[in-house]
């Protein structure tokens, strides 16, 4: 059993994410319960103002989890990164002592912090086996955002510059992940609140790149990213929007979840999940996905053609 840390958005503006996470976990037999008495991780606000505050806020949640003796699973990229950074900081005894005093409780950061993608990734075989044909032919651009795999000085759960966890999940779910260059570009994050023009430009560029690469739908694991990409299209009133789903919504669809159960009606931009005809030049990844150690270029995983056997050249 794992403790789920939702963070502020997953119960509010990103409730579809929270809902679909619970649905998929139940469906796959992953037991998760919400972390009791959880509080805000501090996100960007705390670390912009005061370092100890930025440690203390996530540390409190780590303490709760540690006292319960449970592992954590986190979905929001910001929450995930703040918890990881706090955990690293708490390895230093002076920092740990100082922050413990601030919180007024003993601190131990030794908790396993899992990203939702890792948890789903462990269920790849089961998803593969139990998926329906719901997503067949759908071309999916997987968007990680800037933070999930690139937390400074923290070992990433996937390749920093070219993560492929979501692509593999999408593949297992029966859809077709596509290769595209903006998968770890920044969406603008909180600038969509404080300086819209910037976030609009950054997010719309990402959506445009996905569209040009031939995506039918964008999928992401971070609530802010989902909001920004969704909002940008809605603001710009783009026709033929590229729907932006949460990874658990997509996987949920493949596993038989209904639109209502997965809260697919709560998106800003129009949601049309029918695969578009291949008029643009998409570049679907061959399966298996590129591995390190193989030749060059995108087309990897070529198998040698069967040998001729029998009468060879004499």
């Amino acid at each position, binding site marked *: 059993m794992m403790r789920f840390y939702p963070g502020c958005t997953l119960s509010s503006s990103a409730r579809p994410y929270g809902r679909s996470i619970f649905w998929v976990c139940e469906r796959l037999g992953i037991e998760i319960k919400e972390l009791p008495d959880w509080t805000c991780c501090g996100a960007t606000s705390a670390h912009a103002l005061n370092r100890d505050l930025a440690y203390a806020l996530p540390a409190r949640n780590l303490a709760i989890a540690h006292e319960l003796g449970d592992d954590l699973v986190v979905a929001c990229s910001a929450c995930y990164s703040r918890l990881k950074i706090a955990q690293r900081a708490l390895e230093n005894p002076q920092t740990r002592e100082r922050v413990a005093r601030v919180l007024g409780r003993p601190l131990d950061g030794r908790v396993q912090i899992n990203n939702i993608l890792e948890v789903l990734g462990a269920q790849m075989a089961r998803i593969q086996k139990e998926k329906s044909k719901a997503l067949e032919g759908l071309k999916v651009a997987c968007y990680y955002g800037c933070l999930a795999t690139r937390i400074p000085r923290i070992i990433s759960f996937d390749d920093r510059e070219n993560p492929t966890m979501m692509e593999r999940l999408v593949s297992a779910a029966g859809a077709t992940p596509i290769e595209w260059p903006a998968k770890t570009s920044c969406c603008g994050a909180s600038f969509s609140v404080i300086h819209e023009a910037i976030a609009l430009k950054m997010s719309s560029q990402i959506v445009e790149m996905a569209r040009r690469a031939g995506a039918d739908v964008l999928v992401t694991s971070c609530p802010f990213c989902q909001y920004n990409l969704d909002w940008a299209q809605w603001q710009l009133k783009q026709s033929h929007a590229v729907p932006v789903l949460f990874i658990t919504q997509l996987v949920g669809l493949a596993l038989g979840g209904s639109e209502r159960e997965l809260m697919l009606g709560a998106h800003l931009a129009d949601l049309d999940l029918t695969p578009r005809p291949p008029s643009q030049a998409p570049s679907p990844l061959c399966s298996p996905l590129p591995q390190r150690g193989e030749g060059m270029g995108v087309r990897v995983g070529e198998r040698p053609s069967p040998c001729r*056997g029998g009468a060879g050249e004499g």
Partner: protein
Amino acid sequence: MSAIKHGSVAVVGGGIGGIQAALDLADSGFYVYLIEEGPAIGGRMAQLDKTFPTNDCAMCMLSPKLVEVGRHPNVQILTLASVESLDGQPGNFQITIRQRPRYVDITRCIACGRCIASCVYQEPKFPSEFDVGLGKRKPVYIPFPQAVPLAAVVDPQTCIFFKSGRCPQNCLKACERQALDFTQTERIFTLEVGAVVLAPGFDPSDARVVGEYGFGRYANVLTGPQFERLLSASGPTGGKVVRPSNGQAPKKIAFIQCVGSRDLRHQSYCSAVCCMYATKEAIVAKEHDHQIEPTIFYIDLRAYGKGFENLVKRAKEEHGVRYIRSMVSQVTEIPETKNLLIRYRDESGALREEEFDLVVLAVGMRPSAKGQELARKLGIELNEHGFAKTSPINPVLSTRAGVFVTGAFTGPKDIPETVIQASAAAAAVQALLAQARGTRTQAKHYPEEAVPDGAPRIGVFVCHCGSNIAGVVDVKAVAEYAKKLPGVVHAENVLYTCSQDNLKHMKEVIREKKLNRVVVASCTPRNLAALFQDTIREAGLNKFLFEMVNIREQCSWVHSDQPERATEKAKDLVRMGVAKARQLKPLSVQSVKIAPAALVIGGGLSGMVAALTLAENGFETHLVERRAELGAELQGISRTPEGEDVQRLRTRLLDAVHTHPKIRVYTNTTVREISGFVGNFSTVLDGPDGQERIQHGVVIVATEAYEQKPSAYLYGEDPRVLTQRELLRQPLAGEGAQSRRSLVMIQCVGRDEKRPYCSRICCGEALKNALALLEQDPSCRIYVLYREMISYGFLEDLYRQARERGVIFIRYDEQRPPVVQRVNDQLSVTVRDARLRQEVSIQADLVVLSTGVVPDPYNEELSRLLKVPLDAHGFFVEAHIKLRPVDFASSGIFLCGGSHAPGTISELIAKAQAAAGRAAIVLAKKELEAGGIVATVDQEKCTACLTCLRECPFGAVFINAHGLAEIEAVKCQGCGICAADCPAKAIQLGQFEDAQELSMIEELFRERVSV
């Protein structure tokens, strides 16, 4: 140290470093086991298209060395071999080798390629290691066309027979030599050697770890080594530069420098060669396709070596290569076109985005993984970067006695530095095993040479080469044709002329039919001419009575689609060969005794090191210095950039040199005249006690380069403006000490059109001094004003440390140098910061100038005395900038020190050891061969016009007592320039005389004699 000294050496690594060390050792009387991991020697240099700074063809330079190693009687090449363990002590080691099976018998394989053609894989399928994954190969393959040994190899990882046990094995059936042998197994054996030289090379940095550039994801992003393969005529596209995504020619190519280097996430050091190799690749790409527009994105442009600056200038001015000083943070692929988008800042600071068709990542050098494994097995320590740990004052000695390390294994470096270190290692081995010289090598004994008399009696052997030649050319018809040619008394077909049984047969035929000329029509003389010459010599014939006709590479292989015409051509070629054979004369080779002593001119660091190395090898050395004392230029330097105590080194060297019984030191002495030739020089020295004549076999020029005294920035007008060397001599505190609260260092002082070259050592010196000053007084503020920060290799660490300790680095443009003024007795330095694009004014207590080095003015005199060339800047010109950096073109004369080029103390030590080692090879021979293919002047025809004397690159021509030109056979290299240019046709080159060459041409145009 063992009392037993084996006269054999194990050299591990078959790249240019291992090859050079092997040749040096084999030539000086040691038996060498050259142990190579892969199926052929050649290493990374074989994969290059061209080399900087001359843009010479890499294979053209390397291939002769490969051939030389391949047929050297004192070298045994062991391929597919690796070292398991090393036991014993210096002089008496037991080295255990594991040799993987090739599954091909290299004594039988003739590299005809039939096994490859008949392989069950119709098309090559597996990434080719040689083509860095760009090209493909089959499980059975020949590593590259010029490979030595030239033989096929089977890769058990990809061969169907090994993977599944079920394969029709067409290769076995196709081979006409029964050379394939799938029953071969791994061998483990132990060799006795006296010393070990490790030259395992480097691995290119893995571009995949710098994921933001998209290597491995984006089709049109390549690494430098891959691009090199695209440029190579022997590469996967035959030298056409194309985009991998669609095979079209790219127009705009971007090079991104420092990929994996100068990067705390990967390698913190600078890989030392990438700025230059990118420049080279950009120029060569443009030469292949004029449409190409290369752009190089860089941080600092490190063009610090001899000739580097020049190449960059040509790249900018003649070839239009664009250099943009902006590091690229990300490469984005455009989905529709697969072009790449790069964002950068231009000189004005504006952010720009540009689209490119192809991106080349200039990846750096990592320590060789196999090399590190080797180090672990042999108990060799590695440094913090994972390269072999060496001492800066003993750059080729590993941490284990008797085991030497060279080349890129000790740190990133280019080919000349590698060759220098290889020769230095060989010199050290020679010294270690001096008494065992010649004990493991074999001299061959031949029967007495018969003097040919009467008319030519020519034997012609026409080779089938299996079906390589016979499959296209009608060899029987060619042999029949040859029988009818004038002078031919014997002509036959042979299945394989190079086989042992045929060689035996040839000797019998020579004796029976009393042949006095032999013509073999088969493959390239590159391969086997020496073998055949040796064979006929064994039969008592002078080895120059031999002519080889190439009807394979130059006939059957290139005209395989026109067999009739190929046969006619083969007949023509044989007719020409026979015509020349009729004119061949025996050439004699004499032995000339050598004077086993050396003259070292210049008693600085390099001269002392060279003299000691020679003395340790057991040779008398005369060390001549025109100043009053040795090592004068080392005075005042406290530490090397790596932290070694220079004064302690100087003292040790002085002691050693003055007390060594084999070294005679002459101070206050100059060279008055030098005459003679390699092995027999005669020199008059002019000293305080009068003149003295000495005899010696070799000369080493070891003059140094000196800090130039500047004439700018108030130097000489204000005592607070110093050079870097003067700074070191200043007292730090107390009387005479100056305040150094605020210190401004100015780099590149005095560089202008007249002296444009980079002096290589100044940035390292400045960094070292800055850090030393901060050690003493952490509160002092240091500013370094520079153009490019030349902290190559491990010096990069010093640069980073300096920045971390608060040294402020301000880059200025060449066109807008700093200005030093005195205002109210306060020194003030004003400079335009090129990055901020603003003027900055600094109040300075001290201004320290890095003025660069200039060669010793005495070089002019030496150049005249020795008849060796100087370049435009006063440095000596070596025989070849890449592969013979410490040799002069004239035999027997070597160079080192700052007279060759500027270098750090560590680099100069290696160079001096290398020059001494190369000189020792000559002295070790006791006798030199003179004659053979040399030119001679007909004294009747010579008019002493001096053309040949001026043209000879080797200084082999002199004017004799009769006032006519004469050629010193020992110095002559047989190049033929004099013979070609003599206006009176007074010079003939042996084996290529006018009559011989003309006879071939006449035969070609005569009517054919039809069969």
